[in-house]
């Protein structure tokens, strides 16, 4: 098949799905009841692009193939085309987006069953996939920005999907506003690039990068990174992601774990050769990532809402990816994006399955006359679910092991590679990389600990919900468990696409490294920091053993701890850390800090500074103009006497003037 046509289909089918699912039921309310049709259309419009992407992948497209469809805008020398670029990087991202997306669509068919706005949900999800594909396939920054804003919009719509609850609307608005801050930086970066290079095409930007001064490049990369911190939830803009869990769980899995939040990483990887020219900013990126990873991991230790644990874990894992970016190992960042998409989507979907079951419990409890409070997302009321939801439990456990980095799972390979690269970069004489490496090790331990904690509290031990002997949840239907099984399997085996350096000794290569970064004399789409020193074989073996040991110890320790103490484990930890624990519990008071400074500052400034200005100056000017117009017309309107002869007089006067002008 013609590759241009294939690309067009990949991008446009989800858009068609959004239109079909969004507009038809809107104008034809009877369609809204047909969940099967809506779900099939929605899932199919993502599954077919996935198949097409696989076809492109198998056919080996990826020596950058640019498909230009039409000129979006042209002004003088500056043109922006709607053009899509298929290379190894965008193919991998498109595979993740459509593949995981299709699974999550399938999952939503069961999960959203019975929702009043079922059709709207699928329309939004399809729209999201369309925008995300625009983002990853774009050949220039502006089309990418279109997708970037588009996924932001979809994120807003889906977080606030159950907008009747004011809390959800507030979370949606928060996500949107915080994202806008980052988007603003992205815009500024684009403005600078247009001024310096005169184009937004990636190829032109790379070609023109050498002509730019060091300061300009640093400014551009820093601004792009700030944009990425907004979308990818890094310090200081990470506060929206935990609140974004207000949306339906498939949304959390798709948008706020697997795809959208990784777009910041994708942006930096896409412009990797530009990023490499700004070593100072790379340090900032790596340290920000490290700090975020650590902070989010500690917060996750103290959360009791199952989805919030996963949300902070996502923030933490994104921090890991930024560490990789900061030490110049972009392909590793993308590698972790891929593996993280597998296990985090699996974890979220698993939590969704759990919540689904707990809703059932709540329903039965209410039915039996239970009046007390009940939060179906609170891990404190779960426990022992393994018995009732075996498939969910097993897949959740597999994903937990993967994210913890137990050897030979997906997370092990990608996380180990990140730490290895940080170590190598430090050895190469970049002092900050040592800090990054150390923090990474610590965070890996924490990750293993808190993820195992969430598994233990949810699935092991005895049931803790009220009347547990009478009321029991059941395993979810196949549309929910099937994606879980697929994703869990991928979490276990997905890491083999990126074998460690060591594997070369036995004739195996790091496939994803060759695919993304290319080989000698044939560079791939992702650049790589050139390192002078090479880590020796013994050190490498040592690092791998260290990483494995940390993961195993973390999991084992947490397992023993919570198997022994159950829910009491939290209290023990709290007793041990005291004040610090309170900080974790309240997310380091980050929201309160923003509320006190930024929000109150803006509101106060508006009330005391701008409001009087607006009333006096702006309104005054407007009113003055209106009054002046009224006064003048009061005088002038007297000319309109209504007496016809006066008009005739004026006409004759005009005739005289005209004749005089002609004759003279």
């Amino acid at each position, binding site marked *: 098949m013609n590759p241009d046509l294939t690309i067009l289909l990949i991008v446009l089918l989800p858009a068609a799905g959004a239109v079909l699912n969004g507009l038809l039921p809107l104008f034809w309310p009877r369609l809204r009841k047909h969940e099967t049709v809506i779900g099939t259309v929605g899932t199919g419009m993502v599954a077919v692009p996935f198949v097409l992407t696989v076809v492109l992948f198998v056919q080996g497209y990826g020596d950058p193939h640019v498909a230009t469809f039409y000129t979006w805008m042209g002004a003088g020398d500056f043109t922006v085309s709607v053009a899509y670029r298929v290379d190894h990087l965008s193919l991998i991202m498109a595979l993740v987006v459509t593949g995981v997306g299709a699974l999550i669509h399938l999952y939503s068919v069961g999960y959203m069953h019975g929702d009043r706005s079922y059709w709207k949900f699928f329309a939004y999800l399809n729209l999201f996939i369309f925008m995300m594909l625009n983002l990853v396939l774009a050949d220039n920054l502006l089309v990418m920005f279109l997708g970037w804003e588009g996924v932001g919009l979809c994120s807003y719509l889906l977080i606030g999907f159950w907008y009747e609850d004011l809390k959800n609307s507030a979370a949606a608005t928060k996500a949107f506003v915080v994202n806008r801050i980052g988007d603003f930086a992205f815009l500024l970066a684009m403005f600078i690039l247009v001024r310096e290079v005169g184009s937004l095409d990636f190829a032109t930007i790379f070609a023109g990068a050498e002509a730019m001064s060091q300061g300009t490049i640093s400014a551009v990369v820093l601004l792009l990174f700030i944009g990425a911190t907004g979308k990818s939830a890094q310090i200081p803009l990470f506060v929206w992601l935990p609140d974004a869990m207000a949306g339906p769980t498939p949304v959390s899995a798709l948008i706020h774990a697997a795809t959208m939040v990784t777009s910041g990483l994708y942006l930096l990887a896409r412009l990797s050769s530009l990023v490499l020219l700004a070593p100072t900013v790379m340090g900032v990126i790596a340290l920000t990532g490290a700090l975020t990873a650590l902070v989010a991991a500690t917060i996750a230790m103290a959360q009791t809402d199952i989805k919030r644990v996963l949300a902070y874990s996502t923030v933490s894992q994104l921090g890991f990816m930024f560490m990789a970016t900061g030490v110049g190992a972009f392909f590793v960042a993308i590698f972790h994006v891929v593996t993280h998409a597998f296990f985090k989507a699996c974890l979220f979907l698993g939590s969704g399955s759990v919540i689904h079951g707990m809703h059932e419990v709540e329903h039965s409890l209410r039915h039996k006359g239970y009046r007390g409070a009940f939060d179906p997302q609170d891990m404190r009321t779960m426990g022992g679910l393994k018995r009732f939801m075996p498939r969910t439990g097993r897949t959740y456990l597999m994903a937990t092991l993967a994210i913890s980095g137990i050897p030979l799972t997906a997370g092990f390979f990608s996380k180990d590679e990140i730490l290895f690269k940080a170590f190598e970069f430090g050895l190469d004489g970049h002092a900050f990389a040592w800090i990054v490496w150390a923090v990474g090790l610590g965070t890996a331990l924490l990750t293993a600990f808190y993820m195992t904690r969430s598994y233990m509290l949810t699935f092991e031990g005895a049931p803790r919900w009220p009347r547990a002997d009478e009321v029991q949840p059941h395993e979810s239907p196949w549309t929910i468990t099937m994606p879980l099984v697929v994703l869990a399997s991928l979490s276990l085996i997905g890491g083999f696409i990126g074998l460690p350096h060591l594997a070369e000794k036995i004739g195996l290569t790091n496939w994803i490294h060759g695919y993304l970064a290319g080989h000698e004399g044939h560079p791939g789409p992702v650049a790589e920091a050139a390192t002078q020193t090479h880590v020796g074989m013994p050190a490498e073996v040592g690092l791998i053993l260290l990483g494995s040991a940390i993961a195993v110890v973390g999991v084992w320790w947490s397992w023993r701890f919570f198997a022994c103490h159950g829910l009491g484990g939290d209290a023990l930890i709290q007793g041990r850390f005291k004040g610090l624990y309170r900080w974790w519990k309240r997310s380091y008071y980050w929201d309160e800090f923003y509320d006190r400074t930024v929000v109150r500052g803006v509101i106060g400034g508006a009330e005391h500074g701008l409001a009087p200005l607006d009333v006096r100056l702006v309104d005054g000017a407007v009113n003055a103009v209106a009054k002046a117009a009224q006064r003048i017309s009061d005088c002038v309107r*007297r000319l*309109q006497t*209504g007496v*016809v*002869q006066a008009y*005739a007089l004026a006409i004759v006067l005009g005739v005289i003037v005209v004749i005089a002008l002609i004759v003279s």
Partner: protein
Amino acid sequence: MEIALSWYLTLAAVLFAIGVAGVLLRSNLIIILMSVELMLNAVNVTLVAFSQSMGDVSGQILVFFVMSVAAAEAAIGLAIVIAIFRNKLSVDINDFNLFKW
């Protein structure tokens, strides 16, 4: 047949000025309409005079058309006068100021 063109033009100018005076000075709607007819006639005179002096028949054709339009205008104008008269029982132009602010 050798009368100079300027004589006709002068005569037409006088008639036209009288027509203008009628429009500007009289207050009877019907007389104003008649003055308009007079102005049209004055213009016709110049057209015919030019046509004659330049030996081109187009001027007279134009006069023919002007007459048709004048007939139409008189018919409509008088119909309007009748309609107004039914409303106000007057044809004095100073009694109407519908356009007034």
